[in-house]
């Protein structure tokens, strides 16, 4: 595997990108890797754009913040606008499909119906974050984190009554990437 993955997950406050990042970091650790998860706090976290970061690495992680994202998730226009500059030139962008992406963006872009899938297939936008986790997981590839570990991490971190729905959402996210 690549030594180091820097992931940035963004959306509006309440969309659960922090939990998504925690699940990813948790799984990475269970996998025996190192991971550091951070997030933006403050008034922004309430209403405005919310950002959460994970660095996954096989080595010790010193600097805990993402400098250039290998993967950027943006669930809202606002968060895309605010954070797109953090994307590495070789990085991958995942956006919800209602987000307008700059045409000249050189990156690989996944334009996924995350919010709509959540609503249409699961009846609640609340699972958009876990769908996103699925998509990110799919892009990282099996050889970074084991799927079972991912599933356990989700199971441990979401409210017990929602486990099933969230696991389905996770699989939905994988499907959005792998088709």
């Amino acid at each position: 595997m690549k030594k180091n993955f820097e992931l940035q997950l963004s959306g509006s406050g309440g969309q659960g990108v922090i939990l998504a990042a925690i699940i990813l970091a948790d799984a990475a650790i269970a996998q025996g890797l190192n991971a550091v998860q951070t997030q933006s706090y403050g008034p922004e976290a309430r209403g405005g754009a919310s950002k959460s970061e994970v660095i996954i690495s096989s080595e010790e992680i010193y600097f805990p913040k993402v400098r250039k994202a290998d993967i950027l998730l943006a669930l809202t226009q606002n968060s895309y606008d605010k954070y797109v500059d953090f994307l590495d030139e070789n990085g991958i962008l995942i956006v919800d499909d209602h987000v307008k992406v700059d045409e000249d963006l050189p990156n690989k872009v996944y334009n996924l119906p995350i919010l709509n899938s959540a609503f249409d297939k699961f009846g609640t936008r609340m699972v958009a974050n876990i769908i996103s986790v699925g998509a990110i997981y799919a892009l990282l590839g099996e050889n970074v984190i084991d799927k079972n570990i991912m599933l356990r991490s989700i199971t441990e971190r979401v409210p017990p009554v929602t486990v099933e729905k969230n696991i389905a959402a996770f699989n939905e996210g994988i499907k959005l990437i792998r088709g």
Partner: protein
Amino acid sequence: MSNKKYKLLQGNEACVEGALAAGMRFFAGYPITPSTEIAEISSQRLPLIGGKFIQMEDELASMAAIIGASLTGLKSMTATSGPGFSLMQENIGYAAITETPCVIVNVQRGGPSTGLPTSPAQGDVMQAKWGTHGDHPVVALTPNSVQETYEYTVKAFNIAEKYRTPVILLMDETVGHMREKMIIKDPSEIEVINRKKPNCKPIEYIAFKPDKDMVPPMAAFGEGYRYHVTGLVHDETGFPTNNNEVAENLIRRLVEKIEKNIEDFSYYEEYRLEDAEVVIVAYGGVSRSAKYAVDELRKKNIKAGMFRPITIWPFLEKQIREVGLRAKEIYVAEMNLGQYFLEVERVAGKYCSVKKINKVNGELMTPDEIINSIGGNI
């Protein structure tokens, strides 16, 4: 496959884990960003093990309550950030002069005043030493990772108990809010120190008469040793005095019991220092960037190294002197306008050039910023 001994924890959570491992049984606090999780988790965890949590009306009261509880025999802690830390100062001095063990966590945020409540900073370093009036002893520790937060919270309690003194765990928002993998140790692996109790009869107990180690044994209220505690300058019996010699002895002993025992808790990390010509001195969150910068500078054939004080107070005079004697240049990188720098310059300035790298914009200092500051100079 899965590695069960590792957990993903936030720095603030790790602080509570460490405190509980060290034997904390009392927490009094008042919420404030970015330290609030420490209170919240304590409130949830303590009753489960028969411990006590109380949310006080403000930080002055929180500090007072933990002193009261500690005098009554419970290991006690509070946690706060800048504004609350300022409010605790008077009673921190009280803990110092009454030799009451306690741990005060300050998860630093941007100051002064309300400042930047959710941003990392290291602006309270000098305040940790000088915030209360009058000469007084201070121990302050600055962990730089979630794991260290756990370990050094334990050590903070141990130092507090062993030396009967308030100990400050000086975190920063970066470390407090970061999640990282952490090993929760088995209780058997953790050294826990408890305060020394009197082993004489109550009638013979002279409450503030120090042993050879300069620390008096401590009885808890309710244990049959009825004694007097005051924030006034007092003699060995604990009663107020205006005797000049006794006063001088007390103040000097309080400070010396810490400074003369510094070897016992001189914690620091040396990174690639052996042949280093350029030494970055950094602590807390910034030291993570500094370590990265050292590796990068080495790649550019600059003989860089890092000295990272974990015990930030009392000042590691001996170690910094040695660094100064060996290095050509020292850069003190801090998220303030140059606080620890002053002490480094004082001690090492005779031997090498000491420069500062500062940032107070509310973002963690990056490796590049450190590299560029040094590069610009080389």
